């Protein structure tokens, strides 16, 4: 099986204008930095991007936004990116804001072969508009559909040639779920090893979900809010 690619450029060869892409990460933590840089370099446009946040003005998804490569964003919180909020308020960018748990679980449902889920998040709010509801045990739930995407770009800590992935600390977040939901899942990793070098007990994403993998480089791992205590 040939899943290993040389770099982001090789792995993203067929991403095209108008595609829907999922991007892992929470804030700037666990974002696929190499894939994002490659998209910026390629200039692929009219993208629909599904990701929890929108990065900051000059890093992460913010870079795609600056170059106006996005047609639509599906996210749960875009507050760290002032340019984003501005484009949203001015109507330049189509934005769909959805509850964070709903975002995560809709990706998971896709990877679990379930077409839809019921969730209480958003009942009684504008999120519920136009959606079917159903009552279970006297409580109201919204029907939300699984979503997949043309591409899921995820970041992991370690991966092997079969696509098995292990994530680190809170850089895990949406990555495992989006990995399950991509029609084509591309993983960038900090360490790429031979099959057998990862303990099967410790694998977070089994390789069956991963189509392409490459060894990433030059991770900046920017910290959004460096916060320390005095001893």
């Amino acid at each position, binding site marked *: 099986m040939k899943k290993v690619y040389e770099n982001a450029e090789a792995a993203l060869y067929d991403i095209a204008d108008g595609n829907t892409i999922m991007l892992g990460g*929470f*804030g*700037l*933590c*666990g974002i696929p930095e190499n894939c994002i840089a490659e998209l910026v370099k390629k200039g692929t446009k009219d993208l629909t991007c599904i990701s*929890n946040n929108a990065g900051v003005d000059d890093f992460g998804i913010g870079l795609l936004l600056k170059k106006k490569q996005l047609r639509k964003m599906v*996210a*749960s*919180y*875009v*507050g*760290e990116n002032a340019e984003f*909020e501005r484009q*949203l*308020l001015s109507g330049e960018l189509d934005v769909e*804001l*959805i*509850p*964070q*748990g*709903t*975002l*995560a*679980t809709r*990706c*998971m449902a896709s990877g679990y072969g379930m077409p839809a889920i019921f*969730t*209480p*998040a*958003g*009942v*009684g*709010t*504008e*999120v519920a508009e136009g959606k079917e509801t159903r009552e279970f045990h006297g409580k109201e739930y919204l029907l939300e559909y699984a979503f997949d995407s043309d591409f899921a770009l995820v970041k992991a*800590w370690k991966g092997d040639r079969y696509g098995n992935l292990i*994530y*680190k*600390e*809170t*850089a*895990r*977040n*949406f*990555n*495992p*779920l989006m990995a399950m939901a991509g029609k084509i899942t591309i993983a960038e990793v900090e360490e790429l090893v031979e099959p057998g070098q990862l303990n099967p007990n410790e694998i*977070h994403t089994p390789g069956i979900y991963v189509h392409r993998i490459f060894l990433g480089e030059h991770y900046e*791992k*920017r*910290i*959004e*809010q*460096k*916060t*320390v*205590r005095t*001893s």
Partner: protein
Amino acid sequence: MLDKNQIAQRIAKELKDGYYVNLGIGIPTLVANYIPEGINVILQSENGLLGMGPFPLEGEEDADLINAGKQTITTLPGSAFFDSAMSFGMIRAGKVDLTVLGAMEVSETGDIASWKIPGKMVKGMGGAMDLVASAKNIIVAMMHTNPKGQSKLLTKCVLPLTGIKCVKKIVTDLAVIEVTDKGFRLLERAPGISVDEIKGKTEGKLIVDMDIPEMDFSVS
């Protein structure tokens, strides 16, 4: 009236040993600084961590280890990492004992508006809708009035809702109030604050059916 730290300190008195707790960004995060002596509370961070520890020392920050507010943090013995679906799974399944979050408005029926000011501030709801739709016990930490001096405790919320009929208790700079099926009910007042002042600044229905004690900040 209370400052942010004192509001947090009063809320911390609601913590019980063994509680799993989610603290929202803003004033709620300060509750972690006032966990009573001898009580073990496990803090859940919605981005995938149980057992959130204190901020790191200078030079020990780890970019892969942050909280829901994107601040660098540490872990504690017994911490566990998991993905975002499991995080909201445990929240929706009612495993989290207490949720503390801020708000812009709360109604006398327990509705909460905390995420959007149309045309001005649309940052997104993040995890708030999941939390308020599922949490067993929700405490709102907020100022009693907004910067324009208008009451934030209303008959009906005007701003877009985060959730309906979900808030149980509110701690403001002036009072501790519970939400009952008959409206807001005053439980405690901040030191030096009169019941009349609280009534004057509460637009929604406020029930005062007992002698209202001052909040007690003594360490028991």
